């Protein structure tokens, strides 16, 4: 697993990302939701890219940094400031859910969305771990 520091401008994001696999391993309800999920998920955060390889619901690998030829099933993309709002520990109304940002076109969902749409509660749970406060 390769998690390099590089997104310090997102506050604790690097720290949460480094601990993400471990945290999910300790979340049996989330693992059960993702038990049939195998995919590569791309986060575009400003100019930075994070690739998460998911095998049977577990985070098997994370690659981070500017990636020349990222290859993933689907991506969630947006400006750094938008991600900072989504991942805030206690977001205000309207900033509290992925789809609120999608509705406002501040985050974009691209690629083959089947893994995401068939496992929405799983992915929202993972984002909750990145926020550091699972809801």
């Amino acid at each position: 697993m390769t998690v390099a520091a590089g997104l310090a401008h997102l506050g604790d994001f690097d720290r949460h990302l480094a601990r993400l696999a471990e945290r999910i391993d300790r979340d049996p309800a989330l693992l059960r939701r993702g038990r049939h999920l195998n995919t590569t998920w791309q986060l575009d955060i400003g100019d930075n890219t994070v690739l998460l390889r998911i095998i049977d619901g577990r985070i098997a690998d994370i690659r981070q940094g500017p990636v020349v030829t990222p290859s993933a099933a689907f991506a969630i993309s947006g400006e750094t400031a938008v991600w900072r709002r989504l991942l805030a520990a206690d977001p205000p109304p309207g900033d509290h859910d992925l789809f609120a940002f999608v509705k406002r076109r501040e985050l974009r969902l691209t690629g083959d969305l089947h893994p995401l749409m068939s496992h929405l509660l799983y992915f929202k749970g993972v984002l909750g771990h990145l926020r550091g406060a699972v809801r």
Partner: protein
Amino acid sequence: MKGAIEPVVGRYLHLDHAGRHYRIYFETAGPDGPKGGIPLVCLHTAGSDTRQYRGLLNAASVTDRFQVIAFDLPFHGKSSPPAGWHNEEYRLTADSYTGIIMAFIAALGLERPVVMGCSIGGRVVLHLALRHKRSFRALIGLESAAHVDPYYDTSWLHRPDVHGGEIAAGVVSGLVAPQAPEAERWETLWHYMQSGPGVFKGDLYFYGIDGDVRGELGNIDTAQCPLYLLTGEYDYSCSPEDTLAVARAVAGAKVTIMKELGHFPMSENPDLFLSYLEPVLDEIAAGGSIYIEA
């Protein structure tokens, strides 16, 4: 007997409407009859059912004056789809929705009830205000918007390679306010997980397309039928801004933005919702009842 039994009664109503026969499940609580409470008909959200109103049905502070009546739309909860459903694509329209509501009210013989609906129900009360303004004592729209722009492709909700219940709950999960108690949040999502195939998607045909009531709001006459609008601050589907736009367009409409609530106020946090609803019900009750003697 050691178990506690709720004062909620569930029954089935048979009615014919628009050439089809329907078996409708409904629940009631509170006094009925000519000397009884003011009828308060409650409409659930898209892809859910009457269980959303379990808090209201059990609220003595409401049922001491109102007869709460909540029914499952056809295809929802314990209401059957009409015969022949398996050969059709289910789609809720403005005509079919208002039609079944009026047929239900007529079949039960309710005299000028209050109708309260949430989400699609919050939208349809605007249609009721336009089409049947003399038929109601008051209308209450929860999470009311005149129109909602799409923010995902609803075809994801009904396809064989995606579990319909899982995605429905996933789509709406973020519409529950973060402050909702965990048990109430997940029961609200459970209702969505139990919806029949294609039903949530079919309801959203009304929500996103056929039920667009922009441009007609100015014709709503609140002197004939008072209109109350209550919307949760965490609702980004029918947002507070959407509801405030309705209130600006309807002279006399009364609007409340509810703190720490989302798209399912009566279901995600029943006690907090009641604190907002009770003043509205007080005002409606004080407006004069044909049932309750002064």
